[in-house]
């Protein structure tokens, strides 16, 4: 998946009304809560067959860090 496509998808995953950018700090998102993290887990599992755990979210700072969790599945 292209990075630009994922950024559009991310708006829907988080149910966010504003656009998402690679360098955005996740903690600045009002929507960055437990519901969003579960939705990210569901999305990564469904789309990329990647299993995430809450530990994976602990060190995330930016959207780019989140993208990196998908490895080469998002380019």
């Amino acid at each position, binding site marked *: 998946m292209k990075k630009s496509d994922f950024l559009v998808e991310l708006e829907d995953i988080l*149910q966010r009304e504003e656009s998402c950018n690679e360098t955005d700090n996740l903690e600045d998102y009002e*929507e960055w*809560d*437990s*519901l969003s*993290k*579960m*939705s990210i*887990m*569901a999305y990564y*599992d*469904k789309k990329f067959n990647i*299993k*995430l*755990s*809450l530990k994976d979210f602990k060190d995330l700072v930016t959207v780019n860090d989140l993208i990196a969790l998908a490895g080469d599945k998002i380019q």
Partner: protein
Amino acid sequence: MANIILRNVKTRGIKTIIPEKYIDIDDELEFFENNPKKIARAKKMVGYGRRYIANENTTVVDLAVYAAEELFSEMNYNRQDIDLLIFVNQKPDYPEPCDACVAHGRLNLNKICTSIDINLGCSGYIHALMTAHTYLSTGMYKKCLILAGDLCGRSCTQSDRKSAPVFGDAASATILEYVENGNVAYFVTGTDGKGWNKIIRPFGGMRIPIDEKILTTKTQNSIGNEVPLIEPIIKGEDVFNFTMDIVPKLIDDIIEFAGLTSGDIDLFAIHQANKQIVENIVDKAQIPKDKAPTETFFKYANNSTNSVVTVLCDSLKDNNIKKVLLCAFGVGLSWGAAIIDIDGIYNGGISSYIEPKDKSSVKEQIDFWIKYIKGEE
């Protein structure tokens, strides 16, 4: 996983009963910072809607016995013919005796009836169904009543936003009979006991009996809600990953085991853990979306043990459904799937419990038991 074929059993009737009282997520603005947009977001993401909650005076046995009475009456069924009663529940009326014996007495069933409990939650109905089929298929038992339910809704503190919006209460009655036409049912079940602590209420059993400290202590859960220690603990992310590891494959396995394709199944009754989880299962297992209801969660929430029965009772009306795949998973960790033919089944649907006017309060019951101990009752 255990793969089992059992013959000569037919499911004759089902009925689900829900408590009278309910909570709508739209009425819980205070938990969403008084922001309706946040409620709309949660509804879209997880599917939150209405959940029915039993009052402190109502138990699974009350709801399930009510369901059985209604079902007997609606089907004009002779209860004296029932020779097997299976009660599946994780919130029993008493530490002892088992719910099946209490229900047997309240329903005035025949003394020749074997009555047993199964202590399982979300996957419990599949195990009860498999147990009923196992007994009946021998031909030694002829008529079985399954009573199923849970009170996860009543058990949650409403300020626990991890669990409270997810769970609602319900119980059901199912009647099955031995038949001689060779009717075939398929079951696949499994357990991962290494995950025993992923969904748990640690206090109140013999391991850690409840004392005053446990009753009065509160702590913060992982999303910052202050919750009592007696609250159920759910490791959501672990349970989600377990579900996605096991359940889509479970569905594939049972369809293959039965020599069918997903096109042969008329209805997929999947445990309504929440909308997001059911939709992920449907996608991963490549099930036709129109045959796998997800809206039952919005209408009744996660009914734990009764969840798949709630789906059946909610979906069978006005539909010509013959072959059903039931699939449930959760606390244990435990899972199961069944493929059964339900053509000709009586569906009593979902009705509301009406509390008897003369029902004793909890305080009155405590006073009764004190007299009972004294030998005055």
